[in-house]
């Protein structure tokens, strides 16, 4: 073990229970977990629930990749295939990606990062978890009863008039999960507004807090519109109220407008928190202040606002007027700017940094690469002529997986590794973690890059059978999926291992800034003994006169140490 790594281990104090007073041990028994109002425990409840849904959604992905290994339709019927990708989509979007970072890392860290004892409404926080679990059970019932065949987008009039799946149950589940999001969102906003520690000005907030704030604004304002659109489907299916029925003069496209009014901002619900996580990790392991802090903040807010104005780019081939499409196309280019600013600023934070390649940093660098590719292909799709060519092909599938899986999921794993010592007080085996991070990058690229190629060549999405000339790409993709699955399972193994055998972490194993590192690992029930007072901005990795001027390079320390 290198010197650097040795500094992270807490010297043993004795054989007895090591941490007498922390949030994990403060109360015992099942009831103390199920009725807890501690944001840290609720984060763990969410983590366990989301893990279950990640496994269910992952199962769907495995079945899809298996079916697509050969051009023939051999593993399941076309109908079963429809149900399988709908399972994958609904579970992954609403029951994993939307709550992933906000409700696990966000729930745990937000009060810690701003120096508060809890979220503004601790009982609303618990309620949000129960709503989520209730919604999840409803969805599982729908899936077990026979599944849904509409795709995750529930397009009318198929979903209202023709589908023979359990659309009603699934729609209700998604509405309920939406109210859980809203509860979380308003809780986060109120917490950031009203519970910041003395001296924690808005422009001293860590970027993860800003990102969660932007996400919460989107959650509170967009999710109800999803509820509205799905309520209209429920009304039509359950009570025969014909809102979208073309035979009565209803407009099925109206549903798409309402649906995408939520579902495009939802993309930012999924990716904004990752931006925050990456900013924390990159600064810490480059030992640099973030480049362009205020730009980063305004980029987040810009994304949160303009995200509401671009939904029509999902409807370029729906027959909407060309003028409308042009406006949406332009706005979709506009919203790429703040994302580009973020990538630029991370890169410049790395520049002349004293980079060490610990596992969280490897995840973060992987994120930057994959997100950049996903973002750039988003520009292809914002251009109407190209979009018309690749609509409903694997190009689109590859694009949004680069953002939401290569981006958001990688960031989740990175964030988990980064804050794991804080959450559990344990260190995981660093070598395995680095291996998983690298495997995740290559496994991901191997799985999804071929989809760009075959999509551009015309392979449509949502078909179980396909012309043989696409097989080479599908086989590559399915093989990559095996690597990717291994990379996703590996952290579950080493993190679980660390719970029992991991070395005990110090309070601040990465020498990071941020209030969450100024308390014990794991933190006590009330987060801080004495509430902190903040006197300086975030990411002071090179305080004035302590670090070298940028013109004189400091020799690198121990690059990463030995594995």
């Amino acid at each position, binding site marked *: 073990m290198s010197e650097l790594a040795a500094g992270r281990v807490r010297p043993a104090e004795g054989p007895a229970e090591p941490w007498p007073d922390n949030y994990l041990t403060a109360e015992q028994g099942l009831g103390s977990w199920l009725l807890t109002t501690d944001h840290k425990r609720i984060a763990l409840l969410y983590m366990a629930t989301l893990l279950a849904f990640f496994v269910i959604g992952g199962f769907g992905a495995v079945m899809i990749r298996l079916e697509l290994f050969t051009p023939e339709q051999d593993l399941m019927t076309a109908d079963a295939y429809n149900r399988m990708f709908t399972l994958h989509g609904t579970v992954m979007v609403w029951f994993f990606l939307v709550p992933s970072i906000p409700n696990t890392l966000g729930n745990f860290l937000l009060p810690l990062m701003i120096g508060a004892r809890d979220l503004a409404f601790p009982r609303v926080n618990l309620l949000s978890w129960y709503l989520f679990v209730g919604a999840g059970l409803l969805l599982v019932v729908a899936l077990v009863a026979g599944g849904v065949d509409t795709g995750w987008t529930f397009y009318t009039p198929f979903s209202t008039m023709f589908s023979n799946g359990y659309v009603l149950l699934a729609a209700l589940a998604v509405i309920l999960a939406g109210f859980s999001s809203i509860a979380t969102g308003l809780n986060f*906003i109120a917490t950031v507004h009203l519970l910041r520690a003395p001296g924690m000005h808005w422009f001293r907030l860590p970027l993860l807090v800003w990102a969660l704030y932007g996400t919460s604004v989107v959650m509170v304002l967009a999710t109800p519109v999803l509820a509205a659109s799905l309520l209209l489907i429920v009304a039509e299916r359950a009570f025969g*109220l014909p809102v979208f029925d073309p035979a009565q003069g209803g407009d099925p496209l*109206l549903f798409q407008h309402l649906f995408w*009014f939520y579902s495009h901002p939802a993309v930012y619900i999924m990716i904004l928190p990752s931006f925050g996580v990456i900013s924390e990790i990159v600064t810490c392991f480059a030992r640099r202040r973030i480049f362009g802090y205020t730009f980063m903040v305004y980029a987040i807010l810009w994304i949160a606002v303009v995200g509401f104005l671009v939904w029509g780019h999902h409807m370029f081939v729906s027959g909407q007027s060309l003028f409308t499409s042009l406006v949406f196309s332009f706005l979709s280019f506009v919203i790429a700017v703040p994302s580009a600013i973020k990538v630029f600023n991370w890169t410049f934070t790395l520049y002349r940094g004293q980079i060490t390649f610990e596992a969280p940093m490897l995840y973060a660098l992987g994120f930057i690469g994959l997100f950049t590719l996903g973002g750039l292909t988003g520009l292809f799709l914002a251009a109407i002529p190209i979009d018309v060519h690749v609509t409903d092909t694997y190009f689109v599938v590859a694009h949004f997986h680069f953002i939401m899986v290569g981006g958001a999921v990688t960031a989740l794993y990175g964030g988990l590794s980064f804050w794991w010592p804080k959450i559990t007080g344990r260190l995981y085996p660093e070598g395995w973690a680095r291996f998983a991070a690298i495997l995740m990058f290559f496994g991901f690229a191997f799985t999804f890059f071929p989809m760009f190629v075959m999509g551009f060549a015309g392979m449509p999405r949502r078909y179980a059978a396909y012309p043989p000339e696409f097989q080479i790409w599908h086989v590559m993709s399915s093989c990559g999926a095996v690597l990717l699955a291994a990379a996703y399972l590996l952290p579950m193994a080493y993190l679980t291992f660390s719970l029992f055998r991991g070395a005990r972490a110090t309070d601040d194993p990465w020498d990071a800034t941020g209030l969450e590192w100024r308390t014990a690992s794991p933190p006590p029930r009330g987060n801080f003994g004495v509430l902190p007072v903040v006197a300086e901005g975030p990411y002071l990795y090179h305080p004035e006169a302590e670090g070298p001027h940028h013109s004189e390079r400091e020799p690198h320390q121990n690059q990463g140490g030995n594995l």
Partner: protein
Amino acid sequence: MSGGALREPWHSLRRQREAASFGMWLFLASEALLFGGLILAFIATRWFHPAAFAAAGREADIVYGTANTLLLLTSSLTMAVGAQAARAELPRLAGRALGLTLALGLAFLCLKGLEWRADLAKGLWPGPGFALEQPAARIAFAFYWLLTGLHGLHLLGGLSAIAWLAGQAVLGRRPWRSPAFEAAALYWHLIDVVWMFLYPLLYLDGRAA
């Protein structure tokens, strides 16, 4: 901290009160977008079928609708009095005002129930045997049932919350100066405001000519 209004993680009741109303305002923004989305769908469809929507508006029972509007407006007044009285710790006044709010809200629901029964008798459910000829009038009434139903559910939720809070306060389990009364009042006003949009859209359309 039984009997005290202060809860974790707050250090002062003033701040907690601020949070309760701030949190409720955020929730109201969310609710506004829920109804906003549905009303937008209503307006968009009406744009395509103005005549059918006007015909549907003429069929809606304006007597019930207007009476309910007056009831709801009055209940907002009593609710505002109730919340302020609770904050000023005037239990008698607060109890009466909240009681009156509950009574007005219940009266609204009863009238609404009667109205729905009359609507069904007139064949205004957009199913088989629908009373109007234009197909799009079915959509107008689909919105009518959905919007009034959803509004009714919200009202029921508001009533339950007020009844629960007032009940607790009367039994001495919740101090009158708890910020929850103000939050409940805000929510009640939202229900009122939503109705102010639904009333002209659903009842007044097509009556001018």
